[in-house]
């Protein structure tokens, strides 16, 4: 026996073999994971290709090249550029249209909107005013949505500039054309609050939230300020609670509303508590609150709507089924 040559113990030999196996298994696992990941990603992924906006732009660019004198494709291209965030290209197209047709309202409004968005309110205001002068005496001025848009934009710019009288005039013109424009009603409320007529501001904001009672906190913020200015603390508390409700701060809204139930804002508070119950998944509780509102204010549209949709006296009959014989349908 050669005692001078080092010989590994059986354990060491086993370990060497185990190490080899571990290495092989690790390599197999890594390769397997990599392969599976690659197959999975390739199989699950599909190249989305050009976006719809890019596709529209490409089609319209082709149309403009085919007939450079035609204004309609240029206007459509300008709209597509705007949608794709290419404001400069859009403005170039509007300018091309305005060269041919200086009174083109679509081009004037499109260019004005881009300037307004970019913060150049002076230039934008001039273009909106131009639209108003072109359209205000038109045959369909009372239903002209482009004219309404121009009035609304003028009102917004003038409100920010604190030219409240001009703003109110423009916004009142806007809501005369489209009484369902919640944005215009909201801006009108802001302008009236700025002009120092908080009671009118409250009325305007009430109109604004009539269409979107639960998705938009800004009108309630203005309303709270207006009620505070009028010294109506309960109403101001209710309006502030509504901003909390919309922001899903239920823990603030609920406790703020409860104390109002015995005061002048009881109907509003009850309605809000109904909304709160509904938002928290308690339709039975909501229904009870809506009924309380109707006891205080039988014509309250939001409460009537709530009772209807929650099945408490719905005009839609409760569903029934008839397993009718063949042909009876």
């Amino acid at each position: 026996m050669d005692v001078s040559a080092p010989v590994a113990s059986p354990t060491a030999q086993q370990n060497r073999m185990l190490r080899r196996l571990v290495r092989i298994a690790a390599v197999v696992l890594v390769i397997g994971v990599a392969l599976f990941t690659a197959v999975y990603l390739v199989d699950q992924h599909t190249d989305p290709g050009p976006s719809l906006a890019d596709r529209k732009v490409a089609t319209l660019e082709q149309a403009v090249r085919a007939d450079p004198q035609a204004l309609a494709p240029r206007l459509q291209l300008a709209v597509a550029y705007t949608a794709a965030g290419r404001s400069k290209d859009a403005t170039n197209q509007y300018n091309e249209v305005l060269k041919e047709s200086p009174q083109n309202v679509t081009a004037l409004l499109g260019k004005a909107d881009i300037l307004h968005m970019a913060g150049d309110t002076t230039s934008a205001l001039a273009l909106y005013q131009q639209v108003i002068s072109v359209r205000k005496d038109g045959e369909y001025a009372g239903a002209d949505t482009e004219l309404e848009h121009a009035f609304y934009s003028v009102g917004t710019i003038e409100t920010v500039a604190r030219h409240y009288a001009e703003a109110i005039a423009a916004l009142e013109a806007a809501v005369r054309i489209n009484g369902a424009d919640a944005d215009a009603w909201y801006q009108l409320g802001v302008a009236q609050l700025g002009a120092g007529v908080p009671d009118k501001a409250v009325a305007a904001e009430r109109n604004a939230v009539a269409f979107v009672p639960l998705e938009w906190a800004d009108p309630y913020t203005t309303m709270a300020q207006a009620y505070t200015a009028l010294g109506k603390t309960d109403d101001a508390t209710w309006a502030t609670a509504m901003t909390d409700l919309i922001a899903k701060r239920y823990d603030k809204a609920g406790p703020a509303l409860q104390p109002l139930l015995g005061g002048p804002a009881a109907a509003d508070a009850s309605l809000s508590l109904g909304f709160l119950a509904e938002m928290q998944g308690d339709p039975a509780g909501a229904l009870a609150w809506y009924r309380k509102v109707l006891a205080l204010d039988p014509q309250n549209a939001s409460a009537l709507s709530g009772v209807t949709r929650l099945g408490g006296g719905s005009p839609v009959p409760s569903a029934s089924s008839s397993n009718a014989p063949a042909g009876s349908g």
Partner: protein
Amino acid sequence: MNPIEPAAPTPETAAPALAAADHAALAAQAEAAAEAEAAAEAGLPQASGAAAGAGAAAAGGAAVAEAAGAGAAAGAGDAAGAGAAAAGGAAVAEAAGAVVAGAALAGAVAAGSGADGAAGVLALEAEERRKRRRLTLVLALLLILITLLTLVSAWYLIFRRPLTDLLPPTSQNAPPTYLFSIYDASKPVSVAVSGAGDRVYVAQTAGDRLVAIFDGSGHELGDLQPPADNLPHTPANVAVDPRDGDVYVSDRATGAIYVYSSNGSYLRMFEPKVPIPGWQPLGVALSPTGSWWITDLSAPYHRIEVFAQDGTLTATIGAAGMFDFPNMIAFDATGNAYVTDSNNGRLVILDPAGQVLATVGRGAAPGNLGLPRGVATDPTGRLYVVDATGQLVHLYRAGTSADWRPVFINEFGSEGIGNGQFSFPNGIAVDSRYRVYVTDRENDRVQVWGY
């Protein structure tokens, strides 16, 4: 006894060795090499082995050293075995035996550093054993992972579903993400898809007003041509029979449902066995029990009719005024039906017999609906409802017998023309891979979403 084999510890050998241990401890270490040499001179068989035994004993404890010292009478092999036993048991004895077998130790002893070398070897051996345990564990873990990977890969290659499907259904609350769009559809209102997702049928209400057939990647393959009868055809709703892949197309304008094979050949018309005057079929869905549920907008009031395969009317659901443009129907695994009662702004949940279980309507709660149109379910229990005016798709989990109202879990989509944005979405379908197809009507496309 062969000294290279470990001796089994016995009371007779262990006791004296233990008794002498303390006295011999120091001497043993210092004299280990000399003792080994003495053992060799005594003519003991395999002296180097005996010395090794002594060395091992010195490393492991004084008792072994003493045993080695007494080795002239007892035999170095036995002494080594006794020492090993005294040092702590069979395991160490075995180790010692193994070490004895090692020529490396003999070399170390011969070099005059036997005691320290043997101690190191024992430590090394113990370390090797620890390594063996660790390596065995690592190997077992790797083998488990490889097995898992193999199973997951096989599952995926068979079903091609997203990996999230392996999670418990109740944890699958995330919305799908936008994948791609099928463009060039003209005002598409309804979509159906084959189980494997390789055929997508899109009902178009503008352009040629046909049901277009696309492959799973969005390449148009052809269309479904209605019978040449000179009637003003407009497909309203399209459904696939999962049993044979046949495609059912409702044509409200002509009061008919046309049936096509999966490759687009016209087969026949589905008709009520007893004609229904002014029949206006809109939504078409096959129940799990094999009956056709069809929403009918004809006079005297909007309703759902249930037909057997041969067109026999077996039930009518909905009293006068209950439904206002019931649009589409989907079923869950239990056979409950989900009907979008569009102009009432609600989703009506019916049991298989047509009794109302619950509704989801307009209101303030999350997941409440504006103008519900398309509806679909998937095997995980997710329920998809398209809200055309909300410009999005609501995602619910089906309710339970405790409360049949679906539980809102998420939503996806917003208004616009970008990827994942809608302009009046309408129809919806889900394939077996959980790809979600939504007709984006005013954007003239079908969006495909996935998990």
